[in-house]
Structures are given as C-alpha cells and as structure tokens.
C-alpha cells in the first residue's frame, strides 16, 4: 500500500458546551486538538471522541452536507459541522431552538421554551 503522507499539524483549543442528562449538569469543557489541514469541524469532534472523550455526544449521518443532521452553533453561527472547515480555535454549542438530549445532540421534537440563556435555564 501507499506510504503515509506527511502531515502539518496545528494545535487548537476547542471549547464545547456540555450537558449531562443524568445529572442535569451543564459546563464548558476545553480540549486541545492537533488540527490537520483540511479537517472539518466534524473531523475535530470525531478526533475528540476517538482520542480524548468517549462520552461526548453529537449527531451526524451523511458527512456530505445533505442530511443536515449535524448542525451546531460554531463560533456563534449555526452551521453543519461536516462541511465547515476547521481553521483555528472554536467554541461549539448545541442548536438554540431545541432542547438538548446531551452535549451537542438536539432533541428535534422538543422546542426550547424559554428565550432566556440556556445555561441559566438548566441551573
């Protein structure tokens, strides 16, 4: 098979809004990720899940911008994580319009009722 190509790696900080449905607790967690050129935000999430934190919950299916199931708030903007290029430090939050199952995983059948801040709501 082919030789492993050389990689350019840039360490980035990724801050993720977490929520644990078992305890009702919310917090922001920071991870350091060795970002490679040409990674999507989804590739970053997968790297964290595979290497740092198996408890991180997020949803994706098609990876090609079609199922629109992986949408999250990336640096304050709603985006699909699969087709968004990761270029530096980032803050990831769940969609604001739905209740949250866990971490970045929205419950698409339950709208968020209050207009207040999410973190306040859960405390």
């Amino acid at each position, binding site marked *: *098979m*082919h030789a492993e*190509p050389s990689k350019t790696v840039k360490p980035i900080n990724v801050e993720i809004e977490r929520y644990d*449905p*078992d305890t009702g607790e919310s917090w922001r967690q920071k991870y350091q990720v060795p970002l*490679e*050129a*040409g*990674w*999507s935000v*989804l*590739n970053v999430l997968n790297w964290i*899940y*595979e290497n740092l934190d*198996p*408890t991180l*919950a997020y*949803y*994706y*299916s*098609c*990876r*090609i*911008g*079609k*199922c*629109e*199931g992986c949408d999250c708030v990336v640096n304050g903007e709603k985006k*699909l994580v*699969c*087709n968004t*290029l990761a270029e530096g430090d980032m803050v990831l939050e769940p969609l604001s319009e739905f209740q949250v*199952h*866990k971490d970045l*995983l929205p419950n*698409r*059948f339950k709208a968020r009722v209050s207009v207040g801040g999410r973190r306040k709501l859960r405390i």
Partner: protein
Amino acid sequence: MANWEDLADRVITTDLLIIGSEGAGGTAAVSARKRNIRVTIATKGSDIRRSGASVTGDGDLSVDSTSLVRRFGLTMAREGDSPEVFFMDMVRGGKYLNNQKLVEIHVQEAPDRLQELKDWGVPFVRVGQASGHSFPRGVFIPGPKLMPPIRNAVLQSGAEVITNVMITDLLTDRNRVVGAVGIDLETGGFIVFQAKAVINAAGGCMRIYPYTTAPEELTGDGMSMAYRAGAELVNMEFPMFLPGAFPHPEIVKGVDFPFLISTAGTRMWGAMLNCWGDRFMRHWDPDKLEHTTRDICSVAMMMEVRQGRGSEHGGVYVTFSHLPKTIVDRFEKISPPEAYFEYGGFPLKKILPDLKEDAIEAVPACHFWNGGIRINERCETNLMGLFAAGEVTGGVHGANRLSGNAYTEMVVWGTRSGIFASEFVLGADYGTIDADQVAALKQRVYRPLENEGGIGPVEARKELMTLAWEKVGIIRNGPELEEALRSVREWKENRVGRVTPRDKRRSWNRDWIFALEYENMVQILEMVATAALYRTESRGANYRLDYPMTDNDNWLKNIVAKQEDGQLKLWTEPIVVTKYQPPAGVFPYGKLEPITK
C-alpha cells in the same frame, strides 16, 4: 422463566414493524397504511431524512425514457425506449446475475412510482443519461429535495415513527418472524417489538470500507439480523464501488466530486491519470475511457494503485488540465453549482487546487450494496412474516447496479413490500414470542457494557475497514481472501463479544453502539470474503486476479448464503431467467458490456 414482557423496558405491539425510515421504509409505510393497519417505523436516525442513504443521493431515478416523455412531459428524455429495452440494459449491466422476475417488475412499475413522488411534491430537476443506459432515463432529484416530501407522506399516512432506536435482532417462532428487539439510544432501554410482520428496509453495509459515499450508520445491521434469524442472502460478493471519491483531505473524504467531473454521465470532461501522467483508462476501454461502467473503472483505478502508480493518498488523479481554460470556465458556468463546485455546501474552491492546471486525487468508494436478503416478487423472504425492500435486498441488480436504479428500487420495492406485508398482516396473528430467546438477545445486547480489557470499538472498526479494503476490496485474489477469512474467523472467535466500550453508561453511548455494529460488520465481511472466494471468476464487483475471465459456462449462478447450526453455509443456484438467456462462453473481464447505440 419470566414472561417475555418482563424482560423489556418497553413493549411496542404493532401490526407491521418497518426497520428503516427512509426511501424504502418510508414508501413501505405509506402503502401499508392504505389497508388501515397499525404501522410502526423504527430508525437509528434522529428523524426521517436525517439518516440513511436516500437523502444522500445525487441522485437520478431511472424510468424508461418513453414514459418520461409521454407521461411526464420531460423533454430531455427520448421516445423509442420501453420497459423491455430498460430490462435488457439492467440484465446486461448486472452481468446477467439479476433475478429477471424482479427486473421485469422493476421496469414496469417505475413510472407509477415516479407519478406518486410527483403527487407528493417531489421536484424533477432534469433528465440525464448515465453509462449502461441506452436512453436518458435518470430523473435528477437531489436527496434533500426527495426526502422531505416522503417524510410528509409518511407522517400523513398515520404511521408511527420511533426515532433513535437501533434494532439489534429479529424474533422468530421457528420459521416465522414475530417481532424484533432493540435499544432506545436515549435511555439505553431494551425494547421488544411484537409484530405480525416485519419489513426489513435497513439499507446496505458500505461502512465496512474506509472509503465510502454512504452515511455513518450503514453497518449492515439489517442484513446481519436477518442472517442471524435464518434468512437467505444472495450476491453478497458484489458491493458496488463508485470510481471517484476524495481520499483526502479529511473534510471531503468519501465525497464523490472527482467522479462527478470525470466518470459520471456519458461525457464529463475530467481525465483520470496515474502518477506517470498516463490516461490509463485507454488500456481498458479505448472508446469510452472514464465513461465505461463503474465496476471496470474502479478496477482500473485500483490496478494503478496496486502496481505503484497511484497518488499520494492511495488513489489516482483527476484533472481538467488537458482542456483549454475557456472550456473549463464554460463547464463551471453551465453546471449547476450545487452539483459541482458548491457540492454539499463544502468550500471546495478553498480546498481544491486549480483544476485547469492541477489535479485532485480520486479513489473508488463503496457506494451501494448489490447483494442482500433474498426476496421474491412479493418481497417475501424464506422466513414467514419477514419482508425486505431496498438496498438491504439482493437480486434486482445482479452483480452491478446501473446509475439511477437505487432510487427506482427504493420506491418500487418499498411500495411493494408495504402492499404484500399488509396483506399478510390481515390474515395473521401475533405468533408466539419465546422468553428464552428474548433473554438471550437481551444478554447479547448488554454484554459489551460488562466487558473489560478488550479492544476498543473504534480501533476494532478501523482494523476491520483496513482489512476489508486491502484484502476484500476491489481487486481480489484467492490467497488474500483466504488470509482475510483467517483474520475474520479469528475475530469471530476471540474479539467479537469482547469489544470493550470505554463508556459504560447506557444513555447515548456511541462506543456501545459501535461495538454492536462491529459484530454486524464482521458478519457481513465474512459473507463477502467467503462468497468472493467461492466465485472463481471475475464479474461485476468481484474482480479476481487469479480468475480474470468472466465464465458464463460455469458461473451463470447466484451464490446464496445462510446460517446453519451457527455456521455460514453457501451454495449456488442457477440464475432466474424469464426473457433473456445470456450467451455461453468465457470472456475477458469487461467484455460483456451492453452494446449501446
């Protein structure tokens, strides 16, 4: 022994359980609901249209061209076509291994199903002609435009949809299927479905390969659960590869843009080169070059890689550099951006080099599953009460699927399965659920959470994908297949069942689901490798270096797989012929191509 109900965290009793919520499962639900029975759909996805292959289609739906002109007024289609011509293209394209009874129904019912989609509000963008088709038959419908109307039709039909559920096994009462069991991904609870009939529409197993255009969750669950329950599977040696997805960079790995600009259709512009700059398709098909059928193009690409003439990331190159820049600019101008340079919303312009001067890399990616659960014309399997439809089945496409026929299969066979399963339900009782069986299946599901010290599911999965790609991939060879089977059997013996999730909780535990999916993937890989080794010839997606000829004298046969006494058993049966008897003789691989005018 306890009652089976006591073993469940939740019991769902329904007339008809449909496993899978997308094109096939969705249309099955709509047609079954016409008999006013209770229909329950269970899906691993978070909602209809948020998972499965249907929404990812690029995507044509094939219908004979004359019907497209006369019945739908689509002027890009052409008179002169007929279901009979379409039938012949499918049988030739399928390298003669199709079940011709199924093909006849497929081509006959396609126009009615297209009409139904139109009535549901699905837009038809344009009509194109893909390789292997004698006429322009492909009604282009992007997946994200197809699935919302299907979703609406399902919800309006009154079918109940249960999301975020992984069905793990079917329940049987001797030779009859009486329900299924699964996990609620949210709670981790054990659900027992009691049903008079089950339609398996759970899709393919493309995820056993590291390069695939398919979604994350297509791990062969449907085929594996059917196999464990005693169902027969057919044509499992024929996964289908699309010649041209990105192997790199990671953000677009598996995206089929290189295919779309080179081998797709009958006249795209892109050229495929090896690392010596040779347009190698001239050695395989001097007339059609990259526009030969997908199976041959995939084999040609991997031959370059195997013989050391590949690209940096294990593929070949695709470029426009042989064309005047004016023509490339024109191509960009007349092409729909969402199908090309704005594909999937990816920032392709930012990621890719200038195609007028440079090349991108392309690797064949697993795109479809030709084989699967064996069905008859009524979508029945060898197990009473178990029906199947869509990509999870085998037989319609034989050894190779023509472009556009995945969508046609989905709606034609999804709808039929709903018709015949609902008919069965009307004359059926619930059957008997065996508490011992439920207990054993429950134990199998929760066992990974108690494992300690075994390999992690992520690592196990990656090893499986590497083995599948290198030894049971596009170019196959007896000794390598045997080597793969030794690994697979070793895994079945010592690894499956001991995979250890890092997280032990039941709610939203990806490691746990990966561990269960891994068992299904190993099972499918064993079937693919065993059938590939059994078929001592090259045909469709089974290209054997050690048996490079297509042997119609000995191999106009289907390989059927079934579990007996816990072991995989294979046998051959003659192909099902209704109208066309394929020619006898032995031919070089690729010389049975449809002769299109």
